[in-house]
């Protein structure tokens, strides 16, 4: 059971209040119509899915309803950092 710091509520909350939304920083192509099928497929489905440091998007669904980013080790489940949408992580793999 993860204990997640919400950067908007500024405190730790139980995992049950959150929804995990997959890999963070996936940007919708600005001109989808110009994408090939391959590019569009990669945007929709292809993911890093690393063992180790991972940047994820979460939403504080039962709290402030804000989306934010979590840097988490997918092996130890340690949360290294949380940061707001639009911000960059300070902790990255390697």
């Amino acid at each position, binding site marked *: 059971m993860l204990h997640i710091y919400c950067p*908007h509520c500024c*405190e730790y909350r*139980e995992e*049950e*209040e959150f929804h995990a939304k997959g890999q963070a920083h996936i940007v919708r192509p600005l001109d989808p119509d110009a994408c090939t099928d391959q590019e569009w497929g990669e945007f929709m489905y292809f993911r890093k899915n690393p063992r180790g440091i991972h940047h994820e998007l979460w939403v504080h669904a*039962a*709290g*402030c*309803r*804000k989306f934010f980013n979590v840097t988490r080790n997918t092996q130890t489940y340690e949360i290294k950092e949380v940061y707001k949408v639009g911000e960059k992580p300070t902790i990255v793999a390697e």
Partner: protein
Amino acid sequence: MSDTAVETPNVMVMNQLPSSEIVGESPLHHADLASAAATKNEGGVHLRENALQGFLTLRLNPENKDLLASANAVLGLELPTKPLSSVTEGATTARWMSPDEWLISVPGEAAFDLETAFQEKVDGHFSLVNSSGGVTTLVVSGEHVVEMLKKSVPYDFHISEFPAGKVVSTLFAKSSAVIRRLDEQAFELIIRRSFADYIWLWIQDASREYGLVIKND
């Protein structure tokens, strides 16, 4: 139809309340709390429904200081910008819900006036939505209220973590609630209409070992 509409070009606001002869039915109307109140007056958990209050969801960016100031002026209070805090002035309470969202309660009949005033006096990007029909307020208190809440909510109710005035939107059993501590042994729960019966059943169940007293005032 002059009493039902204030026209602004952009946002439609209407008085949603009928005349006072028509009595509204709160989400727990069917539970007949008044009768339940008559039956028992001792127990470790007390519950009172504060029915038919006016609730408004306000959205705006508080970093826009002018916008914030004009909103504050209309509300007659300083919107809390500190996370999880609340401010009460007179009959109006503003609860921080999110960095750009507040849940504001007013007496039921005052909601429309506030909506109207906002549309007239506040300029900028905001949204004020009447949600009075969608929620009801339960005040739970008593010697064992914290135990009851600990059975229901994963949040830490210790006074050091959750002082009076703090507001937390969180889960309540398999539903949700906006919880504000009123004093050491009293909390306000704002719950959703469609889940009200479930929460009412849950609270009765969770309070059984302490004794549940229904207050009706």
